[in-house]
């Protein structure tokens, strides 16, 4: 039972009212419930109760039983009898069926649709399209009609064959190409009849034992005159073209792209063992030394796979012509793309800079000691010590904060200054400005110790201690002090950040909401707007990432918070601090990109991710020496890659992570103590590994995953209290398990699964 009296009252009021006739409930609540909030709660539950219908009345097992396609076996549909389900597609279930009234055993495939009117409309469309397509390589439409329940069905030629990618395993290169030409013929025929297939993939291309290829499933096809309407929901992302993934209009060039993917797969299939590109980071067919994918074939595949539709083959016919040219030993029409060598000179290591910082620390430490000794002699030196400490903590620290490799130096600097400030604060506990300065210094050292998502030493326990100290000092200052309010709000936010890292979402949410409440009372200022925008993003993060942990009554849609943050930032004049406006808006855009990826709205996700990328690219241009700007840009490439991995734009994943990795590598090498840089690097390698797995480039994927493992092991050893590191490690184990499974290393799989289980218990604790 719940301990909360509010909810206990809601329950007893609801349960009594639910048993009353509807017209007597209001009177009952008037009498028994005086609390308006409680009454609203009870009434909304009663409304849901009245509208519940049969909701949840059947258990999931009953629902499965009722929907299990096997139940339909034996059912008669028109003159046909269903035998068994063959598969389940985007629109319905396909059954093997026989013609009941025939003298001979005629086997057919019957596609039955279940679902809403939209699907039924598509289904009718497929029927119309198929009726117009007559070609030996396209599965024939035999019949169609409507069942007794009014659901439409299609009767199609039953193709007893294997998917093309399985069929080609035993074939020679030439045989594979000739088979592929049959597919080109079928697609070309469809294009001539003004039909775009839009879902070409090996699963839709079957080859009979006699070697005849049959193209199936025009389920999401469109007539070419209707291309403006887009549909990304039903297609298969792995074989979709970039414009399809982006939700842009689809043309015959999209089918050319999908054909290119299929061809590439047919050519490298089961030859992966011969393809060991090692650590190379270039795309599959560039790295793969398989002789087949060199020279003209490589050019043909890469022409079909050009990102821009206009740079692909102008038609399937032209694509097929080049394959015929290749087979006949004639020169091909396509020209090789220029190979652009990407230099990794993104980061200029600033060893001199770091050395200079260390020298400054030595000098200031000596100055401190000298000044402090003087202070003991003469109290009037008090203000001078204070101003020196202030200068070290704030000015010097801020000056070196953006230098790569300065994290350790910053920690040392702030820690030293803090010792002196502590002494001073003890001696002047009633001095408000000094107390505030001390609170600010604690915030700063907390950041250096372990503020997530910025350069830090990975000491979350120490950071929390420092933030709590800042909080308690600022709380000791009179409440009407505006500066104290700012520090309080910052301290709440920063504690929230650390709690986020520890995956304590409800706690983090409470802290950020406390910060927002304080900020909304402070007088409006540019600095305040920046801070408020950041708090809004954090609340959005709790709602989005912490969704599972936040109680329903507190849960609000995350994107609303992110959008509010963008609105606040849009009101800051660009002249104030263009770099910061760009940076902070990009962060909100990035979150929206991830949020919509999670909600499966690809179009919006990519829009926001691209907006973030553009913003961060400009930041990098405006501040070429800023390590954080480079980091954020690289990080955004990786975040976009996570979205691309979700939607199956694997080439995009590989390209993006390969642009990000040299930047992140250089940043990590320049600042070896910065654990955030290690997090970033691990995450990027991991996304690349996931992409490589989807490409079945196992040895490349393994090399990437092993790097991730090594980094994560170090991170866990360095910060044993960090739960997020452990959760990340579970994901890494998952990646390795997939790789070992594919390699058939059962003992390695078992070992990894045991490790993963152990760590999952540690995370749950």
């Amino acid at each position: 039972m719940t301990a909360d009296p509010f909810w206990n009252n809601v329950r007893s009021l609801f349960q009594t009212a639910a048993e009353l006739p509807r017209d007597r409930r209001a009177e009952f609540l008037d009498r028994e419930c005086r609390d308006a909030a409680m009454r609203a709660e009870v009434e909304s539950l009663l409304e849901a109760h009245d509208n519940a219908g049969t909701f949840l009345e059947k258990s999931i097992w009953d629902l499965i039983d009722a929907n299990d396609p096997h139940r339909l076996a034996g059912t008669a549909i028109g003159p046909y009898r269903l035998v068994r389900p063959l598969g389940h597609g985007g629109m319905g279930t396909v059954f093997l069926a026989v013609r009941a009234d025939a003298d001979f055993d005629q086997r057919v495939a019957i596609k039955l649709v279940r679902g809403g009117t939209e699907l039924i409309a598509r289904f009718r469309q497929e029927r119309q399209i198929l009726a117009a397509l007559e070609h030996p390589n396209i599965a024939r439409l035999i019949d169609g009609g409507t069942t007794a329940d009014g659901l439409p069905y299609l009767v199609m030629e039953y193709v007893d064959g294997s998917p093309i990618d399985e069929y080609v395993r035993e074939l020679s290169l030439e045989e594979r190409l000739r088979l592929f030409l049959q597919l080109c013929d079928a697609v070309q025929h469809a294009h001539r009849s003004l039909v775009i297939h839009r879902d070409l993939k090996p699963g839709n291309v079957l080859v009979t034992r006699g070697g005849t290829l049959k193209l199936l499933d025009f389920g999401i096809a469109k007539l070419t005159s209707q291309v403006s309407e887009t549909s990304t929901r039903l297609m298969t992302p792995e074989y979709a073209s970039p414009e399809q993934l982006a939700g842009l209009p689809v043309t015959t060039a999209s089918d050319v792209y999908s054909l290119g993917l299929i061809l590439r797969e047919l050519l490298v299939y089961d030859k992966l063992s011969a393809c060991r590109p090692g650590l190379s980071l270039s795309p599959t067919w560039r790295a793969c030394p398989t002789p087949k994918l060199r020279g003209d074939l490589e050019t043909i595949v890469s022409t079909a796979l050009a990102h821009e539709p206009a740079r692909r083959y102008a038609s399937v016919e032209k694509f097929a012509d080049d394959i015929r040219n290749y087979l006949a030993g004639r020169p091909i029409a396509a020209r090789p793309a220029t190979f652009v060598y990407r230099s990794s000179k993104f980061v200029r290591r600033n060893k001199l800079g770091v050395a200079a910082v260390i020298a400054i620390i030595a000098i200031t430490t000596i100055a401190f000691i000298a000044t402090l000794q003087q202070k003991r002699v003469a109290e009037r030196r008090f203000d001078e010590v204070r101003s020196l400490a202030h200068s070290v903590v704030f000015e010097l620290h801020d000056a070196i904060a953006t230098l790569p490799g300065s994290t350790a130096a910053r920690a040392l600097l702030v820690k030293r200054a803090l010792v002196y400030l502590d002494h001073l604060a003890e001696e002047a506990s009633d001095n408000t400005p000094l107390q505030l300065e001390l609170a600010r210094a604690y915030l700063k050292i907390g950041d250096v110790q372990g503020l997530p998502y910025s350069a830090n030493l990975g000491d979350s326990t120490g950071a929390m201690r420092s933030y709590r100290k800042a909080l308690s000092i600022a709380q000791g200052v009179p409440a009407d002090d505006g500066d104290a309010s700012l520090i309080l709000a910052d301290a709440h936010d920063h504690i929230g950040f650390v709690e986020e890292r520890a995956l304590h979402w409800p706690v983090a949410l409470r802290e950020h909401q406390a910060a927002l409440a304080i900020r909304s009372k402070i007088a409006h200022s540019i600095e305040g707007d920046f801070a408020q925008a950041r708090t809004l993003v954090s609340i959005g993060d709790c709602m989005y990432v912490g969704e599972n942990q936040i109680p329903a009554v507190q849960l609000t849609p995350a994107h609303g918070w992110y959008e509010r943050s963008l609105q606040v930032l849009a009101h800051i004049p660009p002249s104030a601090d263009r770099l910061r406006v760009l940076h902070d808006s990009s962060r909100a855009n990035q979150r929206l990109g991830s949020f919509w990826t999670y909600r499966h709205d690809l179009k919006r996700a990519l829009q926001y991710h691209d907006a973030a990328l553009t913003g961060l690219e400009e930041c990098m241009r405006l501040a070429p020496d800023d390590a954080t700007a480079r980091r954020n840009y690289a990080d955004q490439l990786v975040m976009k890659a996570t979205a691309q991995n979700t939607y199956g734009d694997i080439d995009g994943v590989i390209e993006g992570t390969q642009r990000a990795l040299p930047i992140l590598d250089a940043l990590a090498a320049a600042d070896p103590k910065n654990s955030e840089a290690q997090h970033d690097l691990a995450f990027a390698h991991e996304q690349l590994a996931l992409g490589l797995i989807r490409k079945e480039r196992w040895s490349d994927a393994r090399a990437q995953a092993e790097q991730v493992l090594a980094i994560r092991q170090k991170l866990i050893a360095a910060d044993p209290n960090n739960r997020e590191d452990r959760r990340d490690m579970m994901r890494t184990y998952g990646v390795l398990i997939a790789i070992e499974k594919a390699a058939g290393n059962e003992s390695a799989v078992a070992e990894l699964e045991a490790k993963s289980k152990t760590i999952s218990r540690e995370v749950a604790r």
Partner: protein
Amino acid sequence: MSEVTQLLRDWSEGREGARNELLDLVYEPLRLIAERHLHRERQGHTLQPTALVHELYLRFVDQRRVDWRDRTHFFAVAAQVMRRILVDYARRRNSEKRGGSMLPITLTAALDAAAEENFDVVALDLALENLAAIFPQQAKIVELRFYGGLTLDETAEALGISAATVSREWTMARAWLRRALTP
């Protein structure tokens, strides 16, 4: 006595941690059985989907030595496992949206059935989690009835409360979840 039976007894005697150990122990086999079941499906054999849980139960529990209370407890665990499998599967399907022939038919049928009843199993899971934060017993009742397929009386027996209480709490839980899943 099998390990599962021992854990069931430990759990009913209130040993901390027995529930989680039990869950770990049965999740994998249940998943394997589900996979095998789906494989059979492709071979064309029909198997009642409810056989999933029963088969698992038979495999792990020596029935002669187990009293009815243990059996109910077992279904309680199976209900949790079913909930997890469904949500995992729905998340995977949402994130991959892979081509049709790759989808296991039975689990797809479950998700389609849920969609026809106008809810999504991932959203239901989250709403149930939120309900559990306030009314843990109501959430338990939903788990046993909806994911476990237990009747009202069996649920009462499993939780050691009266059928009338189960019925009252169920009514409220259903209203709560309906509200949470209404856009």
